[in-house]
């Protein structure tokens, strides 16, 4: 009974800390061009995440991966909250990885990403951030094609 109590405390402690952490950074741009009237809008930009449900794939394996991902997103991921600290999210990572390589390599990349997802130790020293505070972890780093690796240091905020 005591063991169960301690295990449950441990499990709930882990769950109590959601894997997302947000931070906002403000950026100022300088540009050396002859500027004119800016098209400035009062409206706030919509920074809420919206899934890309399209089937824009060229291969069968890509189609399979996207179908799986769409189903997972609609019935599960959109309902269990934002649990992935990275962008692209793990499921989106799987889709992109399968698209860029193949379904087998994409699956391996996905399981590797899933493992890294559970390492909460000193993420800020390894990954750069995107604007909404998630960590930036693109597929291009893990395709085993060195020419595609565009290393970005952790101090940078990536704007896409």
């Amino acid at each position: 009974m005591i063991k169960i109590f301690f295990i449950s405390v441990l499990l709930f402690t882990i769950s109590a800390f959601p894997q997302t952490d947000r931070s906002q950074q403000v950026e100022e741009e300088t540009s050396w061009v002859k500027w004119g009237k800016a098209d400035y809008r009062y409206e706030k930009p919509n920074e809420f995440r919206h899934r890309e449900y399209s089937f824009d794939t060229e291969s069968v394996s890509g189609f399979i991966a996207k179908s799986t991902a769409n189903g997972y997103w609609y019935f599960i991921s959109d309902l269990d909250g934002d649990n992935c600290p990275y962008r692209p999210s793990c499921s989106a990572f799987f889709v992109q990885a399968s698209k860029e390589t193949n379904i087998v390599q994409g699956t391996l990349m996905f399981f590797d990403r899933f493992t890294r997802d559970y390492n909460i130790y000193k993420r800020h020293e390894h990954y750069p951030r995107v604007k909404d505070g998630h960590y930036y972890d693109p597929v291009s780093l893990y395709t085993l094609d060195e020419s595609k690796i565009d290393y970005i240091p952790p101090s940078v905020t990536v704007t896409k």
Partner: protein
Amino acid sequence: MSILIKKITTLRNMNFVINRKYFTATLLFISCSSFAQNSFDTQFNFANTLYSDENYFDTVTELKRLLFFDDNSEYNYEANLLIGKSYKQGAKFSDAIRYLTLAEINAENIDELYETRIEIIRINILRRTTRRAFKLLDSLEADERFTDWSDKIKYWRGWAYMFADDWVQAAQTFAEIDTNHVLKRLAEEVDDDLYSVSFAKTISYIIPGAGQIYTGEYISGLLSLGWNVLWGYLTIKAFIAERIFDGIVIANFLWLRFYRGNLQNAENFAKEKNMVISNKALNYLQFGYDGLKP
């Protein structure tokens, strides 16, 4: 008769001579005056023309040129004010505030001081540093020199509230100017349409999915409710069957996850719908509203 004619003629001649003198003198004065309009005035007018033509980069260049040669600092206020306004048009707000602050320092009377301070406030509203805008508005309101402008200050305070998404306060502020103010009515309408984020979260705590249904996301709400019911049922079933470990695992990795997700979704849906509503109002304010804008 001839004497009379002579007198009239003499008078006429005198008049003619006097009129000619006046005419010549006036002509001479006008010529001198047009020559006397100095090149600084011309340069400033040129910059103004560029500003009217929306050629803001060149406006800044010409005003900087004017200031560089203006050893007597006669144009410090006007030039810095117009440079600030040009940067504002280019959405370069930090630069705009810098030059408007210089204009403020060189303001020579209360009207000029008010104009620069209000411009700075308007820029703070535009770039959504509304806390700063409120601070500046507070200092204007507290300053007795600006008592005559209190309605205008309230007007910009209302705008600051709208940009800070506080439509209730905005409506109250505009009501202090005029109980039938068009922006007061707009702010009230927006506030009526907004969803309550705290309410959405609270009802989702009690009934998973309720918050999402409240915000109009029916399918998401029903699916969320379904998942929570399923995992809740399995957890309780496991505990009843004394499969404690299974119960803890299901509760922790599944039920809690979907329950937390339900709360997140309730909050996010409410916030996103509110953002759409307030953006619609902001869009109207920018393109449909005829009054003064930031």
